Structures are given as structure tokens and as C-alpha cells.
């Protein structure tokens, strides 16, 4: 504590210069009836050493994914992030800056975010990207309200959006929370048994304000059918596609098959999983959405000498100018994590991204190959996957996962937590960090599990 307060020991001197006698004088304006009595009932201060040692002990009690074979993804993905990213992003000039309100002394972050916008724009194939939202779920939710703002006037189904039935309930819940204020009706888009979007049922969504689908979808399926969606829903319905950004090294950019808005969880590019946050939300769109979209955006400009310079722009959409008529309430966002994303993207380059995507896909393919030959395991969807896929196991998925866990494997995601009917399905995720021996260990334990089930059955 003392080491954080440069004026410890100078209090009296400072107070007396102001004509005060004690600290108490500085709080004379706070009425007695609202004053705390006594000390805060909290533990005493600790030194840096003690905090670090407690942190090591407590966080050491968490089981790090990397400490054993792990197949848990379902929206967050462990890719290797090069060392330079961490070392550069923690430079004090980036780490300890506020939002760049004074562009003259914030050119570094402003230019980096403008470059980030370009990187994302290129990645998803849309002309405009903002400098990030909180995460993939709020980006998706804000995309829905944005779509309604843009299309409500011309839509034949005003105040209505359609969302893929596969959307994880936690994400859907965020959407509901964000949409209810504007009284938006969120309807559901059905899927085929093979995991792809039901294009027949989709027709119902034509004329609504927007449809939300994911590519790859939450079951890991690469759905070629999505390239037909825009045509079906029509000009006045926003096609919003949620992406796993790494997949775009090999998978077509949604902007190239008609997406109006692309959102996604940026985390796999640049950031560790970090218990689910901080992350960064990708938000990109076409021209018509620009002035009604949420979030900050940087523009390239000039200074009074005509020199290239960057600044925040289109602020009139934002809460600090437009207050309750703002396009979003976002203020603090995820700039630093987006910066990590930009650094990772800059390091990868187009070839590196393709390789990274391929490594993810190869690990997935290998896992599919091995698990398809594992007794008692069935691949649920015959289709192409990016880096995750559903398997059906013998018996109950929850029990199976507990078994794997007890045998040193973090086995994947229990799909029943999303889709309560699917009590025997597990979403298995691989990334560039998955090794062959990880997969073999999983297969071996699943085979044993099957045997146990058969024996007890």
C-alpha cells in the first residue's frame, strides 16, 4: 500500500498548505449519518510478494487447459500466441493509456486500431470494421439491434429478427437482453438433422430485419448453404454471420457471400482463453450500417500541417455525444485485446493465417479419423468441420466427461448444456495446440468408457 502512495508522510504538510488540519477536514462535507463507522471489515494490506504468492497458490488450484489433453472449445479456442505479442502489448504506452481522446498524443493506439479495422475488414470481406466490442456475444446482440435500426422502416417484418436455433443459449440470452429494450422479437431458424441450416424454413425470415447464423456453426459444421441465405432473405434483411476468425484462413469470407454484418469472437486471434474474458468482439459491416452501428471507429485524417494523422470519428453515434439516443452505450471497450489481435494478425500474414487454419483443420480431421474408429463413438455429422465436431458416446455424455476427467482428460463440451435433448453428445474441439498423443489418449479413454458401459449394461 505504502509503495503506491507517493505522498505518505507528507499529508500534514499538504493539508496545512491548504489551511486544513487533518484528513477529516477533507470529508467534512459528508454527513455523519452516511459515514462508515470504524474500519472496513476486510483483511489487512499485503505486500507484492504476499499477493503473488497467494495468487500462485489460488490460481495454481485451477487446472490449466495446457496441463493435460483438452478438447474444450465451444466458442473459445487455445491457439499459440507468439511471445512478441505479450511483450509489446504490455509496453506502458499501450497498457496504461485511456481512450484516445487527445489524438495528438495517442497516434500509436489510433493508428494501431485503424490498422486493426483494416485487418478485420480484409479478414471478413466487408468494407467497414469498428475497433471492437466487448466480445462475440455482445457483438452478435448489437448486430441485431443495429439491423433493426437500419431496416425497420422498410422491413415487412419490422422489429423482428431470426436467429439460428443452434445459437448457444448463453449467447442467445445476451441477445434477448440487448433486444428487449427495443422490443425486438427474436425468432428461431431451424436446422437440418445434418447440422446445416434449413433453407426451406429460412424463407420465413425474408422481410425481417435480420438473420443471424454462424460459420462454422456451433456444432463445428461448415455450412455451404449459408452462401444462399442472402438471396433468400432479400435486400432489406441484414445477413449477420458469426465467425471463428481463424477459419477465414481457408473458409470464404462471409462478405463475399452476401453478409451485411459479420461478428465474431476475436479471441482465437491474439488472446489466450483467460477464463472467458477479456476477449474482443469483431464487428464489421457494409456502408448502409455505418452510421447506425455501435462502437468506436478510427478515421485517417490530417493535422493542421497536413500530416497524416488519426482520430476517433463518427462520434455522434456515441453515448458521450448523443446520450440516450446513442447507437450503443459502449464506452470502455476491449482495445488492448484487439491490439493483441492486430499484432497476431500482423505476425501471421496471409500465409500464416492459412497455415494456422490448416493446422486447426488437420487436428480436427485427425481426431475425426481416430474417433470414427473408436468403439462406441459415432461422429454425429458427416459434413466438413473446421476445428470441432459432435460425437455421440455410449450412455450419458455428462458421465462420460466425468470419466474422462477422472482419467486426466478434459474431454470436450457436453452438448446437453446447450441442447437439453442431446444427452449423449459431446462437442470435441481441436486447435493448433492439439497433438496426436492428445487425440490418442482421448480415443483410448473413450474406448475404455465404452467397455465399462457395455459391461455395466
Amino acid at each position, binding site marked *: *500500500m505504502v509503495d503506491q*502512495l507517493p505522498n505518505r508522510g507528507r499529508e500534514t504538510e499538504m493539508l496545512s*498548505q491548504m489551511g486544513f488540519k487533518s484528513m477529516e477536514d477533507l470529508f467534512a*462535507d*459528508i454527513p455523519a449519518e*452516511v*459515514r462508515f463507522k470504524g474500519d472496513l471489515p476486510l483483511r489487512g*494490506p499485503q505486500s*507484492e510478494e504476499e499477493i503473488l504468492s497467494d495468487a500462485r497458490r*489460488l*490460481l495454481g488450484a*485451477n487446472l490449466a*487447459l495446457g496441463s493435460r489433453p483438452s478438447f474444450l472449445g*465451444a466458442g473459445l479456442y487455445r491457439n499459440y500466441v507468439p511471445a512478441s505479442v505479450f511483450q509489446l502489448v504490455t*509496453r506502458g504506452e*499501450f*497498457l*496504461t*493509456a*485511456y481512450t484516445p481522446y487527445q489524438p495528438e498524443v495517442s497516434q500509436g493506439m489510433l*493508428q494501431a486500431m485503424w*490498422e486493426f479495422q*483494416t*485487418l478485420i475488414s480484409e*479478414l471478413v470481406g466487408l468494407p467497414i*470494421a469498428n475497433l471492437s466490442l*466487448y*466480445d462475440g456475444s455482445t457483438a452478435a446482440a448489437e448486430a441485431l439491434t443495429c439491423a433493426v435500426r437500419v431496416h425497420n422502416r422498410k422491413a415487412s417484418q419490422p422489429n423482428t429478427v431470426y436467429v439460428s436455433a443452434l445459437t448457444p443459449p448463453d449467447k442467445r*440470452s445476451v441477445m434477448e437482453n440487448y433486444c*428487449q429494450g427495443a422490443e425486438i422479437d427474436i425468432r428461431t431458424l431451424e436446422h437440418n438433422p445434418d447440422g446445416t441450416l434449413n433453407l426451406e424454413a429460412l424463407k420465413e425470415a425474408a422481410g425481417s430485419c435480420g438473420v443471424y447464423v454462424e460459420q462454422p456453426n456451433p456444432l463445428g459444421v461448415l455450412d455451404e448453404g449459408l*452462401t444462399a441465405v442472402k438471396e433468400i432473405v432479400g435486400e432489406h434483411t441484414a445477413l449477420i454471420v458469426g465467425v471463428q476468425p481463424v477459419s477465414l484462413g481457408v*473458409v*470464404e469470407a462471409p462478405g463475399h457471400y452476401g453478409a451485411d454484418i459479420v461478428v465474431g469472437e476475436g479471441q482465437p486471434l491474439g488472446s*489466450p482463453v483467460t*477464463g*472467458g*474474458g*477479456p476477449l474482443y468482439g469483431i464487428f464489421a459491416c457494409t456502408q448502409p450500417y455505418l452510421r447506425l452501428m455501435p462502437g468506436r471507429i478510427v*478515421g*485517417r*485524417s490530417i*493535422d493542421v*500541417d497536413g500530416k497524416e494523422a488519426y482520430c476517433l470519428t463518427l462520434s455522434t453515434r456515441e453515448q458521450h455525444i448523443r446520450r*440516450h*439516443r446513442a447507437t*450503443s*452505450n459502449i*464506452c*470502455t471497450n476491449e482495445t488492448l485485446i484487439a491490439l493483441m489481435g492486430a499484432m497476431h494478425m500482423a*505476425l*501471421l*500474414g*496471409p500465409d*500464416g493465417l492459412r*497455415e*494456422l487454419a490448416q493446422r486447426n483443420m488437420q*487436428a480436427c*480431421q485427425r481426431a475425426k479419423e481416430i474417433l470414427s474408429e473408436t468403439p462406441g463413438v459415432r461422429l454425429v455429422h458427416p459434413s466438413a468441420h473446421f476445428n470441432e465436431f459432435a460425437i455421440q458416446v455410449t450412455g450419458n455424455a455428462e458421465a462420460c466427461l466425468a470419466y474422462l476427467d477422472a482419467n486426466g482428460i*478434459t474431454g470436450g463440451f457436453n452438448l446437453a448444456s446447450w441442447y437439453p435433448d442431446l444427452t449423449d453428445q459431446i462437442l470435441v474441439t481441436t486447435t*493448433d495446440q492439439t497433438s496426436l498423443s492428445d487425440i490418442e489418449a482421448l480415443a483410448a479413454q473413450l474406448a475404455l468408457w465404452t467397455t465399462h458401459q457395455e459391461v455395466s449394461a
Partner: protein
Amino acid sequence: MSHLFGHNGAENTGYSQPEGLACATKPVVPAGLVRQQPARWPRLSEPEMVRHYTWLSKRNFGIDTGFYPLGSCTMKHNPRVNEVIAQLPGIADIHPHQPEHHLQGLLSIYYEMQHMLEVCAGMDQVTLQPVAGAQGEFTAVRCIQEYFRLRGETQRTKVIVPDSAHGTNPASAAMAGFEIVEIPSRADGRIDLDALAAVADETTAAMMITNPNTLGLFEADISAASEIVHQAGGQMYYDGANFNAILGITSPGLMGFDAVHFNLHKTFSQPHGGGGPGSGPIGVKAHLAPFLPGPLAARREATPEERTMAVDEHWYHWHQPEHSIGKIQQWHGNAGAVIRCWAYYRRYGNGLTTMSQHAVLNANYLRHAIHREAKDAGVDHLFVDGAETEVAKHEFTLSMQPAKDALGISAMDVAKGLLDRGYMAPTVYFPLVVPECMMIEPTETESKDTLDTFAKHFVQVLKCDPETLHEAPITTPVRRVDEVYAARNLCLRHPFEDA
């Protein structure tokens, strides 16, 4: 200039990768989905990348660079060990969907943070899920909304905010579907109880206010205000952006508030990172607790079997509130930010009161020093206090209106003059109720010497020739940036055509 997209000479990558796993058959993307054109990302080697971002960083100003008196933002020092802690695999490499027995450390820290914030704020239940202050506001307002829905009080469609409120307050309430009722402040910058009484009625869902308010003044009438709102059946919402001023001295609970958000990235020093990430937990009184987004960290005594995996005598687990509004972020909030703030909290513990005292000491001292220096230099007629007050809290406002009137020097001119002297500028033009406002918050981590020197420089700026000042800044990486040009000639990404 260093341009990311300028480096396009060679077939580089900045990061060579190992071979992927060998497969029996090559994985294929469905034909119609094969990417046709790769993203036009740059091709940099690692040395080029490192130099580019080093160069960029040198064009950016952070707390580490110099004094950052940005009012309302609490730009305090970020203790360095917190970054070490946040990179430990026990936080960096964990997944929110891991089972509880994989996450006892995280859960216990969540529990400790919830508890600490409850104690400090005088609230009954805290959730750490919101990832920023504005999201906290939105979350709390949503809880209030559901609370009234469940009670059948659906006529409560209005939220009252003072005209000095931060923009996120009305924006968040509006996003939840409320109508905004703005009430004017009194001439002395404080809340106008009469104006409040006039609007508070059976349509009032809540009043949102920060105390000390955005002028840095403690609202001594706060209990009366709470009384009025509660009388009308509404809820009191506390914007915790200014919590740094009162920790351990008073609390929103004591002042009668029902809900509060914290800006952990301010009060508890999660680095701002040029705009984020943050963390915006909210705390509520018991009647609102069932509506909080889940899951919350909870605990019970550990069973003997659990003790082998437990971090202490408790078993920590997630808990879903009964009438939860659901999720406002897909996972458990910004866990990485929460950890840093936990490390920050541990450094002060029950000494958080001292932190607030020093924040207020520094603010008052700086205010005093500026006035004193200005008087000595004969420029004290160029500004007035944004609100008359004997003691400010953690920040204070100055109005540059006199300078504007007398010399045409605006608050913005002064701000840019300060940039030339190696300072980040104070917040300008907020709150709107103070004409030509400069809002100054030194925080407790600045030394007396820094404050004295800043006061001198502030006065130096005021003594500048107005013409010179209109030209400021001249020593920064770029000079005044043309924001109108930016808006008129939108260039939001690299125009590859030009290249």
C-alpha cells in the same frame, strides 16, 4: 511513419509454424466455401513487426509516460505485479466451461471480490459479469426492470438522470427501453431536490446518479434524494465511476442506493489499455439480487472429499439467481481483469480508506496549488471553479469561460498547451453544465512534486500568448488533428488501391 501495410516486399510471415498433424485424408472445405482471395494482410518478419509496434507505442501517451489528470477516469498507477499474475496459466489458460473442481482458485477469488465489493458498497449481492461500467449500468437497469415487471409495476417506464450525468447513464437506460428524464443541477452544481421531487412519481423506475458527482462534489442531500425516489416507489442507482473518492468513508448502501456499478478499471486499477478492457461489476440490495445475471460465485463448507481439491475450508461453486435476467456477456465476465483488480485490492485490504483519502488529498491540493500559482502570476481571473466548494472530492472542475471571454482561449486550447508540456490533458467539455469545463483528477498515485509542477505549468499555459496557444500542440507526434476532415473524408481502413 511506419505503415503496417507498407511492408509488402517479401513472402514473409512473422511466425513460422510447425507442420500440422498428418491425416489419412486431407481435410477439405466444401467447394462453395473455399476462400478465394486471401486477406490482404501484411507480410512482416518478426523484426519488422516488433519495430512497427514499438514505433507506434512511442507515439502514445500512458500513465507510465506522464501525469494523466483525466477527470472521471481515475488514471492511477497500475501495479506491475498484477500483469505477472494475470499471465499465470491458472488464469490465462482456463476455460469458463471447465467443471467447478477445475476452477476452485478462480471461484474463490470471485467470491472474495464479490464479498469485498459488497462490503465496500454496502450492497447485499455483487455479480462480476458485466465487462465495463456501461454494461454494469445496463445490467442493473435490466434487473430493476424485471423487478418491477415481477411486481406488476409495468408503468414504471422512466429513469431520472441529472444533466451532469455521464452519457452512458441515459444511453444504458434507453437501451433497456426506458424513457429518460433529465433534471437540471442547482447553480452550485449539486442535485436540485425540488426538480427531483417534481418528476419522481409512479412512472419512475429509477434515478441514476454518481456521488461525488461529476463535478467532484459530494451530494450532501443524497439521503434526501434517496428518500424522494423511494417515496415515489423508484430505485436508486449509483454510478460507481467516482467510488475512488469515498471508499471506506461512506458507501452507496449508507446513502440509500439499491444498485451500483463499479468501474474496476478505475477504482481497482485494471489498466485501461487505450480504451479497454474493463470490468463493471454491479452490486444490489437483497430485493434485486434474484434478478442478477448468473452465475454468481457462492460457497459452502467443503466435504471431506472436496477438501483434497479445495483452496480452503470451503467449496466454491456457481449459483444461478432465481429470477435471473440471464446473461449479458456469454461467459463469467472479464476474469482476467477481475484477477488484476483482486491483486490490487489485496495490496490495500482494509487500507482502501487511505487510498481514497489520498485521492481526495491530492485533488484538493492540486486545486489549491493551481489557484495559488495563478494568483501569484496574476492570471486567476482567467478561470473560475466549476462549482463553488470548500472541499472537492477526488476531482474538481474549472471553467475557462473567463479566458474564453477575455482572450479567446478555450478549454481545448489550454488542454493542447498542456500536451506540449508533457501532460495528458484533463477531461474537457464534460460535464456539459460547466461552460468551457476542465475536469481534473490527479489520483492518489501522483506525488506532491508532480502536482506542484503541473500547477506551475498550468499557469504557464494561461500566460501564453493566445495566438501561440491556438497553435498548440507543436511538440507532439502530430499537431492538432482535423476531426472535421476525418468525418467528411471517411477513411476507415487502408485503401489498398492507393498503395
